[in-house]
């Protein structure tokens, strides 16, 4: 149903990914989710134009997040949450395998991609 609401699978994946990780850069998202970079960039650009996402440059990378100032983005995030919460833990672990939270340098990761 999330795919139908957002119009395509890439859009739905971008939303779920942002909800899970809090922020994303197009190359990382494309690689993690197995979507082409151009599809991801096009979709993130659309969401950015709609005011749902904001972005900032960090070095050479553009990092996106839900627009915390926008009341509309907040409601969209709530909608995404309904579907995110509806996923099982196994499905989430399968979909979001890569750890993206801060981690001590050199600390080993067991059973997940880094």
């Amino acid at each position, binding site marked *: 149903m999330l795919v139908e609401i957002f119009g395509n699978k890439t859009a739905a994946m971008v939303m779920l990914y942002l909800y899970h990780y809090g922020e994303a850069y197009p190359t990382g998202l494309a690689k993690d989710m197995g979507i082409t970079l151009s599809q991801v960039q096009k979709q993130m650009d659309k969401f950015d*134009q*709609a*005011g749902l996402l*904001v972005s900032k440059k960090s070095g050479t990378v553009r990092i996106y997040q839900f627009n*915390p*100032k*926008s*009341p*509309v983005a907040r409601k969209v995030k709530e909608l995404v949450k309904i579907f995110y919460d509806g996923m099982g833990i196994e499905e989430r672990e399968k979909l979001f395998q890569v750890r993206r939270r801060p981690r001590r340098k050199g600390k080993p990761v067991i059973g997940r991609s880094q």
Partner: protein
Amino acid sequence: MKFDFKNCSEEALWKYVASHLNKKGIDTVLVGGAVVSIYTKGAYKSGDLDFITTNLFVDDLPEAMAEIGFKKTSKRHYEHPECPHLFVEFPPGPIGIGEELNIEPDVMNVKGAAIKILSPTDSVKDRLASYIHFQDRDGLDQALLIAKSQPIKLDAVLKWCEREGAIDAFEEFKQGLEPYSK
């Protein structure tokens, strides 16, 4: 009289563009940094004017802007060849500041056109939102600049900060105002 694009201020350009669009049936509200510039009489320089259209569907915006010499340079930016120091942007609506959606802008009559701008109190909230959500200290400084230049409803700012879960930001804002409240 011809409009002086080369030397115009944010306020002059706002009045010129907004009244033109109003006459074309396009209702706008000025938001963002240009509002700070206007309320502080130029103490803050914005560099752009952010207009939010209150009409849900606006198809003829590029044509209306072209009539006054503005060319569309990206999906939401417009530039005028004689006005390199200011560009115009149309961020997506509706107008909202955090959880607040029912924003009542201030209205000014310019040559028969009712043009709209965020009130000083809502502009303070808007700037504080940047500080709260993006850790942008410029946002706090701009909120203080407005509050030092214009009467604002401090209670309304407090309530809004509470709803945003950002009472610390309000306390910092209030502390910043103290030297000026004596």
